């Protein structure tokens, strides 16, 4: 039933509109679509004006069309919308102090990740590069350890401390 209603709506409103526009000024319509794709529908906020069929979105698209027809530039139209609905209508938020984190946050996270990775890798290679004892050294260390019950008398190379 619901579906039926929508189909009727489509036939009577959307299709004829689409057809008449296609027949009319295709270039203008393309510009309208392009601007509408840059604007957020405030009613269904995760859709652009171009995608939305909310009543307000249709009104706003008509407003876009009307202004472009009058010779306004696409920038003018975006300006017009921002003056009324704020930066929130723009799908591409402008670069401002309040949006710095939004714009550069992902980059910062990436840098932080790379820095963490770099530090970790360097630490690991430093550990790996520590000299491995040869069998002879090992044996010497063992005798030294055996001969002295006081580990404090040895420095960390296993040799008696110079006094």
């Amino acid at each position, binding site marked *: 039933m619901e579906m039926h209603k929508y189909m009727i709506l489509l036939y009577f409103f959307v299709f004829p509109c689409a057809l008449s526009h296609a027949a009319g000024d295709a270039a203008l319509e393309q510009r309208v679509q392009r601007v509408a794709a840059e604007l957020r529908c405030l009613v269904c906020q995760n859709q652009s004006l171009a995608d939305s069929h909310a009543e307000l979105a249709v009104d706003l698209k008509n407003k876009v069309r009307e202004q472009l027809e009058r010779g306004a530039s696409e920038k003018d139209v975006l300006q017009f919308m921002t003056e*009324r609905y704020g930066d929130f209508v723009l799908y591409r938020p402008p670069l401002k102090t309040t949006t710095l984190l939004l714009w550069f946050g992902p980059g910062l996270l990436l840098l932080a990740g790379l820095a963490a990775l770099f530090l970790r890798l360097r630490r690991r290679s430093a550990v790996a590069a520590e000299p491995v004892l040869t069998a002879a050294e090992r044996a010497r260390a063992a005798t030294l350890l055996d001969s002295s019950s006081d580990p404090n008398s040895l420095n960390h190379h296993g040799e008696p401390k110079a006094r």
Partner: protein
Amino acid sequence: MKRWLWPLVIFLVLAVFLGVGLTLNPREVPSPLIGKPAPPFQLPQLHDPEKTFSQKDMAGKVWLLNVWASWCGPCREEHPIWVDLAKTNVVPIYGLNYKDKRSDSMAWLQRYGDPYVLSASDLKGSIGIDYGVYGVPETYVIDKQGIIRFKQIGPVTPAVLKEKILPLIAKLNGNA
């Protein structure tokens, strides 16, 4: 100990950001019109379409502009608040009847009461666009200089009226 530190810090930072995100209301888009002059309009009056109403008629007064429509459910929710407020004569309430049929809106006012000094008919909703209306009802507090001082998106609640709108009106009336 140190192993735990970084994941903990990252978790806390994330938790704070997500927590703030959750408490924000995405429906409340801050209006760029606050602190700006109320957009000009001249519209026919609902009850007497021969006459017009313009924001200029209100120069020198603090007033409320309430955007409403008979098709709008939440408008009915907030309506008793306006009806009560109108009785106190604290502030004149003007209606912007948004994309409505005249007969529907007249019937609606008859049924639920008419708190408005008058309502202006924005049949096509173009003044609504100028005012950045995207979810009816919306309410604007406009000062004596015609500057928008406050905007309520969605139905006004007794709390908003008492804590924000009424004090603001008192302040605007006292200082200006």
